[in-house]
C-alpha cells in the first residue's frame, strides 16, 4: 500500500508504540528509584525528539555516571505532546521519576504543587548561580526557589528554501511588509509551494506577532494577572498573522488543524518555501529529507518595521522530584548533564543552545547559517511567556491554539476569538491564584 509510506503515519504509529511502551515501562519500573547500595537506580525522563538520535548520548552518560557514582540510570523517553499528562498522572500515582526534563512553561505549575525540589541551595553551593541563562532561570524561579536547573534553550525563527529564494531573486525579509511581499512573489512564481503555512495548533508563533505589534500575552497586576490578547495592539498582531493565511493565501485550509510537526512534514516533503521553525529542527529536517541539504537557510522573524520580533525562548530545565529517595545522587546527575562536557555535547547534538552562559557564548560565535540566525534571535529578542502556574493551565486548556484555530477556519473574527480567549484566560488567572 503505497500511501502508508507517508512519514506522518510512520511517525504517528511510532508515537503510539512508544507511548504504549513507555507506559508499560513506568508500570513496571515505578519503584525502581528505591533500593540502596550498589543497585541504586535513578529513573530519568527525557523528552523524545529533542535530540534526533539520543540513544548514544545516554548510553555514554549512563556509563560515565555509573563510573562516577556506582548507580545506574534508567532513561525513559517521553513524547512532548503527552508529557504534561504523563507528569500529572505520575504525580497522582506517586510514580514520578527521580530526575526529569521539564519544559520551561511547566516548572511553575509542578513546583507550585510541591512536586519539585528547590535546587537553589545546591546551585549556590556548586557556584553555578551566576553562569545560567537568564530566560531559563526566570522560568524556573518561583518565589525565592529555583526548581529546575537550566539545561538547554531554543527559539523559533523562519527556515526557508535558499534554492527557491535564489531562483526568484529574493532576499530574507526584514519587515512585516517585506515578509508579505516575499510570500506573494513565491505564491505567484511557484504555485506548487505553500509560501508560509500557518498552523492552527501552534501557539508559539502567535506570540512573536502579538508582541511584535506591541501587545502583551498577559500582564501582572499585583497578585493576579490580566490577559492582554484582546488589546488593540495584540489584535493587530494576531490579525496580521492570521491574514498571512486568510488574506494572502500563504497557507492551506488544512493547516488550520496542523501542529508544528505537520508544518515540518510539509517542508520536508518539499511542499513549503518558508516555515516557522525551532532552532532545533533544521538538523531533523535534513535527516528526514537529505535532498534538501544545501538548500535550506534560516532568518530571524522580523519585527514590524525592522529589527526582530520577540520570539518565545523555550527550552527545558532538569528538575528533581520530591519523591526521589536519593536527592543528592539525583543532583549529581543534574549537575553532570547541565554543565561541562555533557551539556556542550547535548547542545551540539540536539542543535539547542546550552543553558549556561559560558557555553551559550561559545555557540553564538557559530558561523553556521543554520545556527547563527537563531542565535541572534535568541540573544536579541528571546522572551519568556508569563511565568505563573496559571499559564501552564492556560496552555493545558489550549486557549491560544483554540483561538487561532477558530480564526483560521473562519468560525470567528479576530475580535470575537481574542475576546473569548481573554475571558477564558482571565477566568483561569482569577481562579488559579
Amino acid at each position: 500500500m503505497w500511501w502508508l509510506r507517508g512519514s506522518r503515519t510512520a511517525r504517528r504509529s511510532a508515537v503510539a508504540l512508544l507511548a504504549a511502551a513507555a507506559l508499560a515501562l513506568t508500570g513496571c519500573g515505578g519503584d525502581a528509584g528505591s533500593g540502596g547500595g550498589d543497585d541504586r537506580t535513578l529513573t530519568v525522563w527525557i523528552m523524545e525528539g529533542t535530540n534526533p538520535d539520543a540513544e548514544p548520548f545516554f548510553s555514554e552518560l549512563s556509563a560515565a555516571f555509573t563510573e562516577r557514582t556506582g548507580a545506574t540510570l534508567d532513561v525513559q523517553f517521553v513524547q512532548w505532546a503527552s508529557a504534561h499528562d504523563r507528569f500529572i498522572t505520575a504525580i497522582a500515582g506517586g510514580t514520578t521519576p527521580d530526575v526529569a526534563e521539564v519544559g520551561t512553561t511547566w516548572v511553575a505549575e509542578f513546583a507550585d504543587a510541591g512536586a519539585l525540589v528547590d535546587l537553589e541551595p545546591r546551585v549556590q553551593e556548586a557556584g553555578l548561580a551566576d553562569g545560567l541563562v537568564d530566560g531559563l532561570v526566570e522560568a524556573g524561579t518561583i518565589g525565592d526557589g529555583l526548581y529546575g536547573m537550566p539545561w538547554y534553550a531554543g527559539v523559533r525563527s523562519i527556515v526557508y528554501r535558499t534554492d527557491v529564494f535564489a531562483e526568484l531573486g529574493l532576499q530574507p525579509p526584514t519587515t512585516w511588509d517585506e515578509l508579505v511581499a516575499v510570500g506573494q512573489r513565491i505564491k505567484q512564481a511557484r504555485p506548487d509551494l505553500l509560501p508560509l503555512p500557518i498552523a492552527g495548533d501552534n501557539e508559539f508563533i502567535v506570540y512573536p506577532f502579538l508582541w511584535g505589534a506591541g501587545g502583551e500575552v498577559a500582564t501582572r497586576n499585583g497578585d493576579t494577572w490580566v490577559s492582554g490578547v484582546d488589546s488593540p495592539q495584540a489584535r493587530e498582531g494576531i490579525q496580521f498573522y492570521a491574514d498571512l493565511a486568510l488574506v494572502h493565501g500563504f497557507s492551506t485550509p488544512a493547516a488550520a488543524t496542523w501542529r508544528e510537526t505537520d508544518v515540518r512534514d510539509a517542508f520536508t516533503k518539499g511542499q513549503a518555501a518558508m516555515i516557522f521553525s525551532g532552532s532545533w529542527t533544521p538538523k531533523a529536517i535534513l535527516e528526514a529529507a537529505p535532498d534538501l541539504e544545501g538548500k535550506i537557510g534560516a532568518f530571524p522573524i522580523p519585527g514590524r518595521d525592522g529589527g526582530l520580533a520577540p520570539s518565545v525562548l523555550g527550552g527545558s530545565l532538569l528538575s528533581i522530584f520530591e519523591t526521589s529517595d536519593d536527592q543528592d545522587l539525583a543532583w549529581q546527575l543534574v549537575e553532570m548533564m547541565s554543565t561541562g562536557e555533557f551539556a556542550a555535547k547535548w547542545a551540539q547534538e540536539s542543535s539547542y543552545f546550552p543553558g549556561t552562559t559560558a557555553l551559550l557564548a561559545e555557540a553564538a560565535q557559530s558561523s553556521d547559517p543554520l545556527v547563527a540566525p537563531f542565535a541572534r534571535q535568541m540573544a536579541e529578542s528571546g522572551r519568556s511567556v508569563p511565568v505563573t502556574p496559571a499559564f501552564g493551565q492556560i496552555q493545558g486548556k489550549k486557549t491560544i491554539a483554540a483561538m487561532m484555530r477558530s480564526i483560521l477556519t473562519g468560525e470567528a473574527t479576530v475580535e470575537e476569538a481574542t475576546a473569548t480567549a481573554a475571558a477564558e484566560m482571565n477566568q483561569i488567572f482569577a481562579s488559579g491564584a
Partner: protein
Amino acid sequence: MTLAERTETGRGAAPPAARQRPRRRGAVTRPWLLLAPALLVMGGLLLYPLLRVLVLSLQDFGLRELVSGRTNRVGLDNYVELLTSPELWTTVLPNTVVFAAVAVALTVVFGTLVALLLARLSPVVRGVVTTAIMVAWAMPAVTGTYVWVFAFTPGDGVVVQALDALGLVDAATANPFAGRLSFYGVAALNVVHHGFPFVALTVLAGLLTIPRELTEAAIVDGASAWRRFWSVTFPMLRPVFAVVTVLSTIWDFKVFTQIYLMPGGDGVNRNVLTLGTWSYVESFAQNRFGLGAAIAVLLTALLLVVTVVYLRLLFREDEL
C-alpha cells in the same frame, strides 16, 4: 439453547425450581458465600473507584491537593459550575448524545446485516469472512484511529484524494477535521468499523440457535424476508439485541481515544468536545480533578438512565 427453552416453557407456569424447597440453615448464606470472591473483586475494582470519583467530584481537587494529600470540600460547587456551563448544553452534551445515538444505530444495523450475511455463508467462507472481521475488532483503538485520520488527512489523504477525483470536494481546500459534522463523520466511521464485529458475531451466535422450522414455516406462509426478520428472528433474539445495544451504547457514550487522537479532538477544537474528552481535558490539562470527576459522574448517571430505558423498552417487566 437457553433461549429456545425459555420461549418454550412459555409465560404461564412459574419456573419449577422455585416451587418448594425446605429452607435450611445456610440456605441464605450459602449463595452469598459463593458470590463473595466475585463481589470482593467487583467491589475493589469497580465500586471503590466509583465511590472515589463521587467523593472527588465534591471537592476542589487540584495538583496541590494531589501532592499534599489535603482535601478541600466544596459541596455541590462542581456540579453547579458544570450544569450552568453553556458549553455543556450547546456543545458537549449534544455531541455526546447525538454521536452515540448515530454510532450505536449504525453499528447495530450494520453488524446485524453482516450477521445475516454470515448465517447464509458456507462454513469455509464464513470462517474467512469472520477472520477478516476479527481483524477490525482486534485492531487497537489508537492504531485504528491513526489509520482513519491518515486516510482523511487534508490534501493527500487517500479518501480526500478519492473524493476529489469524484469531484465531490476540492482536495486543496477541504479539511475534514475542521467542521463539526465532518469531524464526527470520520469519528463515526472509525467507531462503527471498530464496533460492528462484536455485534455481528454476537447476533450470528443468536441466529444459529433459531430453529430452522420456524423460518421454514414462515417461508411456507409466504412471509417476505423483512417480515421473517421482524416477526420471527427479531423477537427471538430480543435479549441478544438488548445486550449488543446496551453495550454499544455504553462504549459509544464514553468514547475517548477515537475523539481525542483526531486533529483538534484534544481540546483545540472546542466544537467537538464530548463528555469523555471534556472530563479528561478538565482533569489532566487543567488540573481540576474535582470538576473532571463531576463530568464523569454525569456521564455515568446518563449511561445508567439510558441503559434502564433500553432494558424497559426491550423487555416487558415480567421478563426482567
